[in-house]
Each structure stands twice: as C-alpha cells, then as structure tokens.
C-alpha cells in the first residue's frame, strides 16, 4: 500500500515536471516569435559559447577537404590559375578606365549636394567574414558568420559573396552573427534589369507560379509592368529601393511567365550565389537614407 502511494506520488511529481518544462519551452518559443530582447540575448549567448568550437571544427574539416581537393584537381587548378591571371589583367585595365571617369562622378556628386538631393549612402564599410556553421538545410537555409557587433555588423546588414547578394543578418552577438539567405528571407528584394534599368520588379517569398516547375533553389518574383520586354538570360541587380544598396548582382532570369489576371510578368531567377557552398562572405551595413 505504502509502495503504491509512493509510486503514485512519484508519477505525479514526474507529470508536474513534464508540464512545467513544456510550459517553459512554449514560453521561450512565444518570446522568440514576438522578437523579444530576452530571446535574442539567449541566442547571442549560445552563439558566443558554441561558435568558437564550430569555427575550430569547421576549419579543421575544410583544411583537410581543401588539401585533398587540391591534390586531386591539380590540373584543373592550374587551368583556373591561368584563367584568373588573364582576368586579373583585364580587370586592371578596367580599373584604370574607371579611375578616369571617377572625376566626372565627383563633379556630379558635388552638384547633387548643392541641390540638397536626398540619396542613399554608398557602400563604404564592409567586413569580410567566414561562414562557420549552417543549418541542416532541409527546410530553410541559415548560417553563422565569424563577425559580430565588435566588427561593426548590425541587424539587417547585407551579406554578399563574390558572386552577388547572399542574404541578410538577423541576429548579432559580440563576435558572431546569424544570417538568413535571400532564398528564404520573407522580405521582398527590389530589383532592376541591368540591360534596361527602367524595368523594375520585386522578388517575394510568397509567390507560387504553377507553370514554374520545381523552383527549389531559385528566386521567384514579378516585373511591375507586363509590357517590360524581359527574357531568359537578363541579369538582375538590386534597384536601391528598400534595404539593399543599388547594383548588387542577384541572378539571371531563367523563365518568364505572363500573369494576365494580376497584369504582371512573373520571373524565375537563378541566383548567382551557390547557396550550397557559401564559404566566405562580405557584410555590408544596411542602407541608410541621408
């Protein structure tokens, strides 16, 4: 009898503990969903504690894999080196030409200032950083980079790779930051067509176009006007509207589809950034209006 009572009491205590833990976790989820500072603080502590270990483990692994890769692709790497040398020479020539036109730009900037023209601040401050951790990648893509508030990274800073726009920072700790890729970011990205800057549109997360067969790994958006003559192969860059600085390469149009009901032209865009292999990134401060 006493044994049975003891057992019942123990089971009751266990049940209370289970319910209490579940309530605490549900509260944590609700704090996080509401964007509370406490949840952010908790996350930043976790990032600060675990990220150095991830950095070490990732560095060790990438060291081994890159050395192995270097040995097995020696011939390929030599060809790549020759190609890069040639590209470097061409870029140097272009740089000289750009320097020459810089003077004209300065004159225009002076003119803008004298007319009190409201303009966005060009990208000046950036931080180079390395991706040290990423999520399991089956549902959404987020990653941790080894630069934080001490390096000048702030919330909603823009994350770029050498290929183009990669994502946006959404949580910052002292030495590390968590970023989310544009493929999965809920906010819209305003773009323009490089060949015809008047043609503008927006990339949104919640667009589903039936005729776009498997759009996984692609961006989907629409042009503001159905009359815009865009075609596959057109290069898209950020328009400068919204939080992204103007002129960041996004990707190339892969497919175009007219939506006669909504009077827009839907576009499927292949991003320049290979989201499966992001290694080094550049973090740029969010755009500010002066």
């Amino acid at each position, binding site marked *: 009898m006493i044994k049975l009572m003891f057992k019942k009491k123990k089971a009751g205590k*266990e049940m209370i503990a*289970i319910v209490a*833990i*579940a309530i605490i*976790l*549900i509260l*944590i*989820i609700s*704090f*996080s*969903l509401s964007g509370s500072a406490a*949840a952010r603080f*908790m*996350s930043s*502590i*976790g*990032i600060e504690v*675990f*990220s150095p*270990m*991830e*950095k070490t*483990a*990732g560095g060790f*692994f990438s060291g081994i894999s890159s050395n192995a890769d270097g040995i097995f692709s020696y011939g390929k790497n030599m060809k790549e080196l020759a190609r890069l040398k040639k590209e470097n020479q061409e870029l140097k020539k272009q740089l000289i030409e750009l320097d020459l036109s810089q003077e004209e730009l300065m004159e225009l900037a002076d003119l803008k200032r004298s007319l009190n023209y409201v303009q966005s601040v060009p990208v000046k401050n950036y931080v180079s950083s390395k991706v*040290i*951790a*990423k*999520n*399991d*990648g*089956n*549902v*959404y893509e*987020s*990653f*941790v980079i080894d630069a934080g508030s001490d390096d000048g990274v702030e919330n909603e800073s823009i994350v770029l790779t050498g290929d183009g726009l990669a994502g946006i920072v959404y949580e910052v700790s002292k030495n590390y930051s*968590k970023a*989310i890729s544009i*493929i*999965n970011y*809920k906010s819209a990205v305003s773009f323009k067509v490089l060949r015809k800057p008047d043609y503008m549109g927006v990339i949104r*997360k*919640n667009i589903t176009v039936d005729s776009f*067969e*498997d*759009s*996984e*790994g*692609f961006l*989907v958006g629409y042009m503001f006007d159905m009359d815009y003559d865009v075609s596959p192969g057109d290069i898209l860059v950020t328009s400068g509207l919204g939080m992204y600085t103007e002129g960041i390469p996004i990707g190339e149009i892969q497919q175009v589809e007219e939506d006669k009901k909504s009077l827009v032209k839907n576009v499927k865009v292949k991003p320049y950034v290979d989201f499966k292999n992001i290694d080094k990134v550049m973090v740029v401060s969010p755009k500010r209006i002066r």
Partner: protein
Amino acid sequence: MGAIYATFISLVIVVLENSILNNLKIFGVAPDFVLIYVCICAITLDKRASSASGIFAGLARDMLVGITLGVSSLFMYAISELYGFISDKIFKDSRFTIFVLISFASVLYSGIKLLVFGEYLQGSIYSILLRNMVVFPIINSVIALPAYAFFRKFHEKIKRSVSLY
C-alpha cells in the same frame, strides 16, 4: 551523471553537425544526427538523461542556426519523453524496432518543421514531401542502426561507471 554525459555528447554532435556534418548530404538531404542521438538516448538511458540531452541539444541548435528559439528543443524533449515512456515496452534488440522509431521521429520532426517553417519552403510540393517525409526518415533510420549498436554499448559502460561512484 548519465544526464551530464548524454547532454555533453549531444552538444558535441550539434557543434559537429552545424560545422561539418551538414555539408555531407545524401540524395540532397543532410541526416539529422542530433535527432538520432536523442532517440537513442531515450531508448537506452533513463528519462532524466534523455530529456536533458533533448532539451539542451534542441536549444543549442535553435540558438545557433534556428530561426525560432525553442521549437527544436520542445520537439526533442517531447520525443525523448515519449520514447522514454515506451522504452520498457519495446523489444530493444530488434533492428526493425529501431528503424521504425527513428523513421517515426523523423517524419514527425519534418512535419513540424514544414508546419512551422512552411513559408520558407520553395519547390514543388511533391519534391518537398518526398525529401522530408520519405528520404530524410529513411536516411536517418539507416544511419541510426549502427549508431544504436555503438551507443547502446557506450551507454551501458556509462551506466556501469556511474553506478560505481
């Protein structure tokens, strides 16, 4: 003591998974080593140890690469409680049992992630369902079989060494 061991191992797995193992994809899917380990803990260790490993591993994952803090943690805790509850009633030597349990946990976890992070999804619904509800559970279950054999022995050792103190 068992809880400390299990939590420590699960945190090490979280760190390794985020930095290395997530890059190793099989059929475009990264196996969930943390989920596998938490399930194994729930089957082979006592409730306190498996719950602790589930809660802390889930929280660490949410803090590091998750979007909403606590989602993984709540799931891992629930699954460790559920499997802890049934662990005395199942035939633990059967590989089929382990395969089914890991598959079930994976399907459930994928389902919750699809519900919570549905807005982040891209691609056709068929490929999403195939990857998350079929390929992901099968890969996890296949990996779980040797992992279970290893950790079962390892946890026995831990239990014995804890009982010595």
